[in-house]
């Protein structure tokens, strides 16, 4: 069953290669390979739940000399999220791109992006991570530019160049670690790393490189234009997964190799940046005039929430608190992934239907596109963190953890963030439910509306009602005090 690790990367990659050769069959090839990689992701999570963390030594070489793939509860859950969102967005894309040529270009780059994402979640080697980061950055920038509009091109170029700077900083840290500790394998480094200038500099370089990519305040400025100007299915995956992949790496690095380097001040600082991001992102979303821009700013805020969890996870000796916080973090991340992709897909439908996505002029949307408006509402519920969404449980854990750790300021941030989120969601819904005197004829675009609706439903219901498996999958991950003796 460990072969499924390889398949979840190899299937989208094979799909990408085939669709270069047979562009006319790209729809079929693309759908088949994303479905295949969903099956592989399910097999991975099934095996992880059954047998615990998996390691796959590529080429049969011991990790260190060779490269390994690895899956534990954390990476398997994100892999599954990615495969799931990919299937929904792919079905959506078959109808979204009306021009055959544009659709063909989309498919190959899209499948390359997915293989990069899956490779990143499963990587266990630092240089291999650098290569996957570059693959991710290049394919994401190319997809952002797909529309060819001036704004999209500018956003894509800025996205690409900043991403390159981030990767370079990451690579510099990798080079220092190899110089000092003679390995690129994450678990080997976890055992070898000890506090000192080498480790600190490498940690600082790699973390700041990743903070650019995950768009944490104040390194967020590239994100709104990129996510707002990309085609809808691309925005969905960029917002739901690509920024989260960089966050996942921050978490992974600080849980494992850098665990012995973490200090309360540092982790608190990341938490404070997260808090600023929550307030700033939500406030900007409240001001946003366009629906996709609103969604993009809301992503900034949601990334902020994830960083708020870090003080609770990395600087506590309390095993249960850490485990609870890790589960809460994952629930927030998964819920946001589903909700934000639903929101972007629905926004794409609105934009194509109305010819624009100016929020103030969305009156009548509910009459013309009832299913899509319902999707917007479902995604909104999950973004605010109302029950029964998974985000509600996540925020609950955040508050409980903050109380226990006596981090009072966090309560204020969560409260303010939720109120602002309620503000931007209800402002949007208020316009969308407004009655138009002559509503456009009600449309039904099944291949676009149903995937979005499915993601919205999953965000609000699925994780909130069935959250127990998340915790059991995370059991045993990164015991308190890190893995370092």
């Amino acid at each position, binding site marked *: 069953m460990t072969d499924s690790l390889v398949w979840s990367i190899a299937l989208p990659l094979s799909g990408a290669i085939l669709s*270069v050769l047979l562009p006319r069959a790209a729809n079929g090839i693309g759908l088949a390979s994303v479905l295949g990689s969903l099956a592989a992701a399910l097999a991975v999570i099934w095996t992880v739940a059954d047998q615990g963390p998996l390691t796959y030594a590529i080429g049969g070489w011991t990790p260190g*000399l060779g490269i390994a793939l690895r899956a534990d509860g954390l990476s398997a859950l994100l892999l599954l999220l990615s495969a799931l969102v990919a299937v929904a967005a792919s079905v959506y894309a078959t109808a979204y791109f009306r021009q055959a040529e544009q659709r063909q*270009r989309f498919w190959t780059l899209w499948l*390359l992006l997915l293989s990069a994402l899956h490779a990143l979640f499963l990587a266990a080697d630092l240089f291999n991570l650098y290569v996957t980061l570059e693959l991710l950055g290049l394919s994401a920038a190319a997809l952002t530019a797909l529309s060819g509009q001036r704004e999209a091109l500018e956003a894509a170029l800025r996205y690409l160049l900043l991403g390159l700077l981030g990767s370079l900083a990451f690579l510099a840290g990798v080079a220092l670690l190899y110089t000092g500790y003679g390995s690129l394998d994450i678990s080997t480094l976890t055992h070898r790393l000890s506090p000192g200038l080498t480790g600190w500099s490498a940690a600082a370089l790699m973390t700041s490189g990743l903070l650019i990519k995950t768009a944490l305040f104040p390194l967020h400025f590239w994100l709104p234009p990129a996510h707002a100007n990309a085609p809808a299915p691309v925005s969905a995956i960029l917002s739901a997964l690509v920024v989260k992949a960089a966050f996942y790496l921050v978490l992974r690095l600080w849980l494992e190799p850098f665990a012995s380097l973490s200090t309360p001040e540092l982790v608190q600082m990341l938490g404070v940046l997260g808090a600023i991001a929550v307030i700033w992102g939500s406030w900007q979303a409240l001001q946003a005039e366009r629906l996709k821009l609103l969604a993009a700013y809301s992503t900034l805020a949601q990334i902020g929430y994830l960083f708020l969890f870090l003080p609770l996870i990395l600087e506590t000796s309390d095993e249960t608190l850490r485990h609870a916080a890790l589960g809460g973090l994952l629930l927030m991340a998964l819920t946001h992934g589903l909700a934000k992709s639903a929101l972007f897909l629905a926004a794409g439908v609105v934009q194509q239907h109305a010819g624009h996505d100016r929020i103030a002029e969305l009156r009548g949307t509910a009459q013309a596109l009832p299913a899509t408006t319902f999707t917007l509402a479902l995604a909104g519920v999950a973004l605010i963190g109302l029950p029964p969404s998974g985000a509600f449980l996540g925020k609950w854990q955040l508050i409980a953890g903050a109380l226990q750790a006596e981090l009072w300021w966090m309560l204020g941030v969560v409260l303010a963030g939720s109120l602002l989120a309620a503000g931007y969601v209800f402002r949007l819904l208020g316009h969308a439910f407004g009655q138009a005197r002559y509503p456009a004829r009600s449309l039904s675009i099944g291949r676009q509306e149903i995937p979005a609706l499915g993601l919205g439903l999953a965000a609000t219901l699925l994780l909130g009602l069935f959250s127990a498996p998340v915790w059991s999958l995370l059991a045993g991950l990164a015991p308190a005090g890190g893995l370092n003796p």
Partner: protein
Amino acid sequence: MTDVVWGLLDLLLILALLALAWGSLNSRNLQRAVIYFIGFGLLLALVWVRLRAPDIALAEAAIGAGLTGALLLAALRDASHSPDHTDRPDRAWRLNPVPTLLSLGLAVALGLAYLQALEIADPQRLAVAVFSHLEQSGVSNPVTAVLLNFRAYDTLLELAVLLTALLGIMALGQARPAYAQAGPVLAGLVQWLTPLLILVSAYLLWIGAHAPGGAFQAGALLAGAGVLLRLAGFPDSHFPAALILRGMVIAGVSLFLAVGLVLMLVGRGFLDYPPAWAGGLILLIETAATLGIAATLMLAFLGGRPAAWSLDTSTTGRIQAADMVRHNTGDNP
């Protein structure tokens, strides 16, 4: 005595390297900055030779200085059409000492970290592991062993990165207009050089198993031949039919992936070559990769889709000849 000579050589190399880097970052004239950068790349190739990294020297000269330089020069040629983009000296740098100080601070901090890293390190690092497994790798050039066997998965993804960049470029728009047909001197040189480049490329591919060389160097050289033909505006340097062209572009990554997956399906493991076949499989993958890299690098130089990329029935490779007639400015970049 020899130490002094080496020391002088090091000093000379480093000073020249720093001067060229400084020039390429701070020169007011953009064209000059690009020229400095190409010089920087060539000098870097010498540094690689000095540090006993001939594989890297070959790749740097061909890709880092050669093809990147050609790309940058082509970008300058585009810029010369819109006058507001040609020279805009970057005053921000001169007026603002903050970045300079920041870079110095960063350099000092990293330098100290590097000193500490060298001190605490086991100087062998992974070298022992690589050399002790070299015999099982199927090749005797250790760099090729790492690239195509021990860390083959990285190389597979690297080929995917190259493919991504190309497809991203293709999605953006049309290729640059072709260059005018060159005069007799350049044309003669290119005519004479092309077969030689093909020969040297095949040699590098073959020798890569046990001496410096390999698919990337060979592919880059082959692409260089293609770029030269393009620059000289040869009317018959047309592309093959679209399907063949696309097949060439994916040749390396697809064969690599297929070999890996087949080995997994027969029960060995992904990219786990049987030791007896390792040498042959590596040569096979490298041959396909050379073709793929050459086609990809050459097409990436065009900055967009050539007509030959389109699979439409009305378009054949020959259409490229029609491309050649289009307007352009001179017979050299």
